[in-house]
């Protein structure tokens, strides 16, 4: 990988947060006026996340359901507005852009979704699903559209003959390819994959993963790859970022993370990856479940499940600190030992 100071980061997130607020209903408001301590329900889905992604890198966001990884991906792709913090794309603050500049950034960051059944409009033909955006954004002339579509489809391993078909006439793996073709049709540089292979069969998953890697080579793409499957993530990413309840707990290069996991949560996660090589294993799970984000624990979010928790973990939020060069972890234990 190229060093940070040579290549500028293509994407930079600074202290990015997303709150979802469920306001009190009428009865609740009255109760509040009468002195009850009812409050709006606030979920900190993403809580002060800072992250940089370099050009050409594959960065994976890993965590359990409810840890905010999809919300983060959606903010990056511009589908959800952030509550606070900034997103810099190629050095420019995305929130400050307008008009032509904003549109260009929006086109450069595309997203591929998890469910290939829900993410394609069932009433549009494949040619419209893939062709609508490039036509609108005048990336291609009306006369050249057909050839352009054939190109994109071939690149994604789809037969251009199928242009006139509807999504229901395709299998799950092919639909995911349509989703990829749709994203690629606007010539993006940065792709957010939200659990893009989670719904696919193993053999199809392998095909799609290979396609991702091949496209990365051919088109010089950068990926933010969101997944809960550490096996897949280990295979394709350069750097891994582990999230827990809206915060980043650890980030490191893939080899480094798997060789020397620092945070107790990462260690537990890695222990639990089912692998082909482990047979007749004795499973030793971590206790408990991810707590409700409505009512996260104080201090370090992981302390109720952490076997090494000390008093400090219950009161003080740990910050991300560099433990070895390029390896960041948010754990108090690194300082106390």
């Amino acid at each position, binding site marked *: 990988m190229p060093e940070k100071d040579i290549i500028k980061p293509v994407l930079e997130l600074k202290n990015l947060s997303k709150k979802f607020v469920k306001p009190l209903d009428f009865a609740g408001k009255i109760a509040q006026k009468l002195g009850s301590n009812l409050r709006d329900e606030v979920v900190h889905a993403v809580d002060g996340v800072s992250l940089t992604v370099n050009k050409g890198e594959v960065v994976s966001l890993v965590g359990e359901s409810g840890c905010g990884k999809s919300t983060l991906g959606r903010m990056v792709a511009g589908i959800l507005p952030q509550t606070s913090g900034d997103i810099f794309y190629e050095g420019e603050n995305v929130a400050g852009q307008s008009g032509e500049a904003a549109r260009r950034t929006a086109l450069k960051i595309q997203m591929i979704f998890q469910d290939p059944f829900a993410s394609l409009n069932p009433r549009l033909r494949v040619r419209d699903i893939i062709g609508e955006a490039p036509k609108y954004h005048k990336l291609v002339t009306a006369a050249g559209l057909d050839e352009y579509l054939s190109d994109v489809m071939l690149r994604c391993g789809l037969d251009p003959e199928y242009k006139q078909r509807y999504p229901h006439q395709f299998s799950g793996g092919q639909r995911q390819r349509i989703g990829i073709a749709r994203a690629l049709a606007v010539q993006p540089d940065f792709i957010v994959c939200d659990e893009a292979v989670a719904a696919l069969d*193993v053999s199809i998953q*392998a095909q799609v993963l290979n396609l991702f890697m091949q496209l990365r080579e051919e088109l010089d793409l950068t990926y933010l790859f969101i997944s809960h499957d550490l*096996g897949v993530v280990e295979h394709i990413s350069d750097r891994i970022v582990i999230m827990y309840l809206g915060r980043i707990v650890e980030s490191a290069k893939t080899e480094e993370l798997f060789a020397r996991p620092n945070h107790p949560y990462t260690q537990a996660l890695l222990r639990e990856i*089912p692998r*082909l090589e482990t047979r007749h294993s004795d499973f030793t*799970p971590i206790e408990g479940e991810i707590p409700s984000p409505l009512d996260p624990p104080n201090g370090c979010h992981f302390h109720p499940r952490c076997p090494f928790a000390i008093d400090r973990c219950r009161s003080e939020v740990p910050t991300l600190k560099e433990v070895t060069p390029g390896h960041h972890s948010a754990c108090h234990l690194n300082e106390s030992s």
Partner: protein
Amino acid sequence: MSVSSPTLQVENLQTQFFTKAGVATAVDDVSFTVNRGEILGLVGESGSGKTVTGFSILGLVDQPGKVTGGKILFKGDDLTKYSEDQYRSIRGSRISMVFQDPMMTLNPVLRVDTQMIEAIRAHEKISKADAFARARDALGQVGIPSPEERLRSYPHQFSGGMRQRVAFAIALLNKPDLIIADEPTTALDVTIQAQILFETQKLCRETGTSLVWITHDLTVVAGLADNICVMYAGKIVESGKIDNVLDNPKHPYTEGLIGSVPSRNKRGEPLTQIPGMTPSLLNLPTGCAFRMRCPYAAPVCETVPIISSCEDGRLVRCHRVEEARSHA
């Protein structure tokens, strides 16, 4: 039957669906044996017939499907000859099933205790208080904290992982001899999956319950099962001891599946992929169903391969076992 007869012995099972578009043989010539306390992993991709196999054993195949051939010997009794009443008496007591989506299998308008007590009292004359106590113990057994209070909750008050534990607890209530688990951890997070695998493994070891674990995930089966059957297009293409099959696959499909799993040894390299996709059951190629995707296919594959057994007790359904192996 003698005491030593296996818990479950399926012989040449065939299940067909008579649809308007034609007859689809979802399960074809499937045979396997599960002994007491053993865990069998039944692995295949969507549409390979693994779920229908599970349903056939429990007599749950609905119209237009029907078990059309073979035997299902459960402790020596042939279940295919059972009447609906006889089936009712063993379903949920001697054999129970855990499904993929616990939200679909639990009744959303009944409290968990109601559902559990009902399941016990359907099979046994027992007082409500005793049934309640047993339900509480079962919840404790699968690792649900404060089971006494949790019994009074509704299914929606549980998280996904907890709900699947409740489903397991219900399956365990009547101390069955056999549990059929159909993709029970597919929808769950890794940490929760590990917890459930841990509890399941403990139970099988402690109580001698046999388990058929149906899944598409080879890695889960690798850590859990004793034996493995790999299904493709309704047929078992390879079966044997888990170590033998995963370390040294003999069927090209098994080999392809193992190659498709991302692992640390293959980091950054392209995964071996199986070209094409699973054929439709209504439109299977003649001969070996896998030959269109198989790298070792030869003219001989246009005839139907029969199961042959290897020296390590493994069964493989392939004409080209020798050739495929010399390539590997």
